[in-house]
């Protein structure tokens, strides 16, 4: 639950009000899309929800935890256990293989040995990349990279999956596949998903559409 949060940035163009008094509530297990044009404040809102940004005002309750009030250590702990991120460009760690990238959040969460190996194999099968386990990120296509990114984000069964424009660099078909993959995996793992996007073609995959403009929520449509 997001309650009256605001976030501003200072830049060469002066003060930018990225998020202005935003309040919203996303039900547990729901797949929500935050839609808006570039620069509308979608990414900042997601970053605030995920604890990557600290808003100047307001409160963010993530499964009952006020994450904007956590200490740095407690926030890292919360992110590690309960959050998963999918970034615009996949952002896999370039020096780790596909399997190692997927295994990273597992190890961070203390899942090691056979359990870790089995989980990686399962996820690789789910994203249909069993043969690419030892491939490095630069050997993958854009769509494959995003599939691995989704698998990595969901590997440790996070309660909340945040996806910032995960289909922005993909063609329509690949984008739809990624959205569907997120939906399926989210549903299977019981994760709540919030996805920032400006792609209207993805609306069919989501449960709720939150429209944002100039840092303010314009509307919230159940689907």
């Amino acid at each position, binding site marked *: 639950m997001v309650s009256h949060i605001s976030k501003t940035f200072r830049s060469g163009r002066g003060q930018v009000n990225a998020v202005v008094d935003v309040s919203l509530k996303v039900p547990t297990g729901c797949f929500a899309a935050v839609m808006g044009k570039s620069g509308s404040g979608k990414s900042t809102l997601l970053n605030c929800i*995920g604890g990557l940004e600290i808003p100047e005002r307001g409160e963010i309750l993530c499964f009952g935890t006020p994450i904007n009030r956590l200490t740095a250590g407690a926030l890292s702990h919360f992110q590690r256990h309960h959050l998963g991120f999918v970034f615009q460009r996949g952002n896999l760690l370039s020096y780790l293989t596909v399997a190692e990238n997927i295994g*990273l959040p597992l190890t961070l969460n203390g899942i090691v040995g056979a359990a870790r190996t089995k989980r990686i194999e399962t996820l690789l099968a789910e994203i249909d990349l069993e043969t690419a386990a030892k491939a490095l990120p630069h050997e993958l296509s854009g769509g494959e990279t995003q599939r691995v990114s989704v698998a990595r984000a969901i590997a440790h069964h996070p309660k909340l999956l945040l996806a910032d424009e995960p289909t922005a660099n993909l063609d329509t078909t690949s984008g739809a596949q990624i959205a569907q993959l997120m939906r399926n995996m989210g549903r299977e793992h019981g994760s709540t998903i919030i996805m920032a996007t400006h792609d209207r073609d993805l609306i069919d995959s989501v449960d709720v559409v939150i429209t944002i403009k100039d840092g303010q929520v314009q509307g919230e449509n159940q689907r």
Partner: protein
Amino acid sequence: MKPGQTGFWAKIAFLFLIRSGRATAALSVMVVTAVAALIFLSALAVGVEDAMLRNTVGLFSGHIIAYNLPDGISPEELSIKGVQAVLKRRYFPGVLSGGAIAQPMTLCGITPDRESTVTALEKKISEGRYPSPGRQEILISRDIADTFSARIGDTLRFSHQPTDSGLDFIVSGIYQTGLPALDRGIAFSALDRIPAEGVSWSAAVFLRDGARTDTILNIYRQRFPETVHFESWEQQMPDLRQLIDLEAVSMVVVIVLVFGVVAIGIACSFVIFIIRNMREYGIMKAMGVTSAEMSLLIVIKVVLMNLAACAVGLLAGVLAVLAVTWVGGIDITAFTTHNRYFSVSGVLYPRLTAFSLWAPPAVSLLFSMIAAVWPAALVARRRAADILRLV
């Protein structure tokens, strides 16, 4: 952070370095070169010390001089483990005269064959030769020869006591060492040609490479009567001791300075390296990696890279030392002709010691860890969103 996760971060750091091969190699070259160069320089400094010591003690005096030895003690008794040779000598203070000139002089009775085998004095004989055993011959310095206008074959008389009539010696050779103590006051004759009644003998003790002078001295002092006086080369030549110490201090300063510069280079390079990969640190932060873990990861990366680079540098340095030794050392004779510490030979043989092997890698590792603080702090204090937004 759980203690067991250090191994995990070490693995991540290892993979990073291995899979960023070219960048790692470029960063490592600086450390490899510095470690190799400093190992070689340290070994060369030891080689210079060895050469000075070898030249100085090897010319005549030996590492240890024993005075006032009674005839009841034989040279063999001083030949303990670590001793290469013991030369028996007797010193007779007296007066050397020739024609109308007389000069105070110490006549040293030696065993010429042994002396020519063990010491380098023979190399400093510019005319003639050592006195032969059984012959009434004398080896004098160029200074004395000039004072007496003496040549090979001339006769000089040596009187031990003012009252005795003295012994005549034929000049068999003339030497010149450049060392005032030898050139101005000592002449040599065969030990068996000088009456030795009531005169104690002295020993010049030459040690093997690696034998410690103080250890041998302690054994001697425990084993022989207090009336026998032992002096090490350090007591005989405190100036040489100071020179060697000064060189050691200089070497430490050089090592620290070089690695100070290298550390700054490493820190700058690593900061560039980290800024280039900053987005990946942002991703890890978003995944819940703590600042402490991030700092640990960077420190492990720097340390691992340094360990590998130090190993290669160590190997390169050792090979360089072996190669120089194999080709016959470094001949600096042209620069030492007027240097009394290089009176015999100007050839340097770099020698590896424990210090020359561990000091450069240890200093490198220490400075690299200090150098890791800057990039680690850079990553630790930035928020994930700032990193992801900036890059």
